[in-house]
């Protein structure tokens, strides 16, 4: 009798064990990635929509089972734009055994690049500084670098200047590694024959008024100002230029200044801040598609925002797109590795990223060109799109382009 009871118990226990493993198999694997960024503090106007973009896309992936029965967890933590907190967050994420990491600022990306190298973890930052790629192998820029953006804008100025002689250009830069990122490449491009006269390079402060700077520009005949900074100083400069009646009403208008900006120095959030000073004739470049560009990318982004209860302002924000896009690349990398039957590890995802080129390039729909990475190219989307503001919205100008001089100076 006792033996019979033991046998029944053994069978029941075996059944429970088998059932347990079966349930685990059905539930699938869980992959973890981390995102540390400024949801509060300086640049939180960028970090907050960025975080929401990544969060919504990860929810969508899980809800729609884009990774089959496997689940993706994205830890999102605020670092208040402080590198020491970013490092702590990153270390906490490592304890959670993340396989992919999304970083944010130029400063923290530069500071942690040795950590990324040691951990051998693929990293996509929100910073597009080409210098991030130096001295390590694991950082990948999602889109064209700040250098490509600034030089690309300068090329547009050189090609479309209406007056005689070389167009006089000033650079308006953030006083940090982020702002200075394209400075030397613009100078090198000019030395290599780019047809602009680089009159001044200004690193701004926390100014309430830019009258002196703008008047100085005017006295030196500056007709174009290219900004590589965040939106608030650009807004203050534009409002100042408006009060001095200096903003060109048409591109290159003689005696006035045409303002242009790189990714973080423009977009819908700039119009929200600067109002009428930015809602007409502000030129801006990025690799992201704008919500004014009709197509499947726009429709999908609106649908995603609506699905997760986001408002219209967020749905149109370029940094919401930015957050979606980096999560898309991470998910696509995992999906490709899974499709090959590989176990998802940092090393496997790194190899998958490096193989994302040629026929394997990834078309995200949220960018103006495909994401391509290889051992010699860790700048994702190579193409840029020029936009101009009209009635407060940004519209495409011409076709997507690549900076010719950045290629030249890097040869």
């Amino acid at each position: 009798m006792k033996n019979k009871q033991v046998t029944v118990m053994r069978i029941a226990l075996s059944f429970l064990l088998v059932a347990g493993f079966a349930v685990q198999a059905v539930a699938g694997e869980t992959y973890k990635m981390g995102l540390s960024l400024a949801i509060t503090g300086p640049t939180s106007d960028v970090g907050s929509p960025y975080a929401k973009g990544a969060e919504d896309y990860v929810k969508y992936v899980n809800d729609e089972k884009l990774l089959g029965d496997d689940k993706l967890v994205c830890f999102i933590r605020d670092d208040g734009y402080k590198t020491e907190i970013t490092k702590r967050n990153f270390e906490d994420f490592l304890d959670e055994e993340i396989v992919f990491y999304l970083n944010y600022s130029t400063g923290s990306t530069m500071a942690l690049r040795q950590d990324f190298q040691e951990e051998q973890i693929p990293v996509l930052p929100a910073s597009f500084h080409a210098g991030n790629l130096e001295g390590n192998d694991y950082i990948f820029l999602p889109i064209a670098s700040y250098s490509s953006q600034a030089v690309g804008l300068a090329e547009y100025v050189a090609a479309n200047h209406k007056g005689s002689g070389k167009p006089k250009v000033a650079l308006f830069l953030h006083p940090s590694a982020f702002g200075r990122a394209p400075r030397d490449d613009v100078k090198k491009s000019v030395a290599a024959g780019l047809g602009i006269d680089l009159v001044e390079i200004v690193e701004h402060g926390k100014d309430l008024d830019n009258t002196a700077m703008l008047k100085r520009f005017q006295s030196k005949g500056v007709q174009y100002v290219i900004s590589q900074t965040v939106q608030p100083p650009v807004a203050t400069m534009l409002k100042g230029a408006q009060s001095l009646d200096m903003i060109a009403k048409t591109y290159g208008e003689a005696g006035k200044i045409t303002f242009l900006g790189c990714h973080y120095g423009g977009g819908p959030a700039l119009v929200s801040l600067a109002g009428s000073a930015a809602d007409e004739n502000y030129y801006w470049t990025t690799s992201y598609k704008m919500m004014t560009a009709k197509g499947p990318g726009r429709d999908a982004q609106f649908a995603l925002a609506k699905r997760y209860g986001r408002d219209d302002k967020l749905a149109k924000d370029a940094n919401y797109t930015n957050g979606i896009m980096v999560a898309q690349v991470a998910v696509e990398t995992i999906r490709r590795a899974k499709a090959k039957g590989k176990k998802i590890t940092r090393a496997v995802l790194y190899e998958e990223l490096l193989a994302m080129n040629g026929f394997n390039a990834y078309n995200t729909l949220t960018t103006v060109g495909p994401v391509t990475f290889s051992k010699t190219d860790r700048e994702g989307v190579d193409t840029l799109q020029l936009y101009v503001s009209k009635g407060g919205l940004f519209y495409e100008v011409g076709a997507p382009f690549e900076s010719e001089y950045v290629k030249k100076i890097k040869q």
Partner: protein
Amino acid sequence: MSYFLQLVVSGVVVGSIYALSALGFVLIYKSSRVLNIAHGQIIATGAFITYALTVFAGIPIVLAFLLSMVITFCLAMSVERIFLRRLIGEPIISVIMVTIGLMSIIDGLIYLTPFGSENFSFPEFLPKTPIAFWGVSMSWTQMVGVVITFTMIGGFTWFFKKSTVGISMRAVSDDQFASMSVGISVPKVFGLAWATAGLTAAAAGGIIGNITGLNFDVLHSFGIIVFPVVIVGGLDSILGAIVAGIIMGLIQQFASGYLDGKWGLFGTADVLPYIILLIILLFKPHGLFGIHEIERV
């Protein structure tokens, strides 16, 4: 010549806004000897209240601006009543630490709202065409800002010199025990000092918000940016805040206009105020107009 004049006009505009922002520090310090580290956060709160009243509640912007001053007046008074009144008589460092805590609390509360991480701009209600004279340009926003600033500064100068309440506040600042002995309510004076500082902060926030747009990081940083103005002018002097504000505005414009771009110099407008601050404090440790108290034992 018009370049010089333009720099003077812009310097006075910027300087008067600095003076208005600095006034909040002075009002509190003048009556309670407390340095309110959270002043930048109150400036931002005032600006956001004006925006919310205008855009979300549909109240005309001028009325919203006045209402926000009233609301911030009441909020600042409540802050004093809840957090600071218990600290009367405690070491000054404890009170300053409380204002640092207050700064974090207000930061946290604002980050819970869209104002913490989104950009906004006030609806435009003034003409876009700049005012031009003698080759000099200024926007209507700047003009209105200067008028509001000087009206408020004039009003407060009169208030402290002529009104009974203002004189009571000065008396409390001079000697709390002597003031109490003649029947002045020190706690009420402290409350009123905080409230009036809140009122000026809302005015400053409204003006700065119109010039820069509404970004929390930009707005609250004005609490730090005007610090040299407060110190140079003298922590307890309204006249000092005005003079130092305008001096700083002019120095910044001239530095940016005449030094930047030459000899490889840039960003002098950010550095020079602090150099001037150090030089002035070397010769006048209480600021240009600060009261130098002599204690006899």
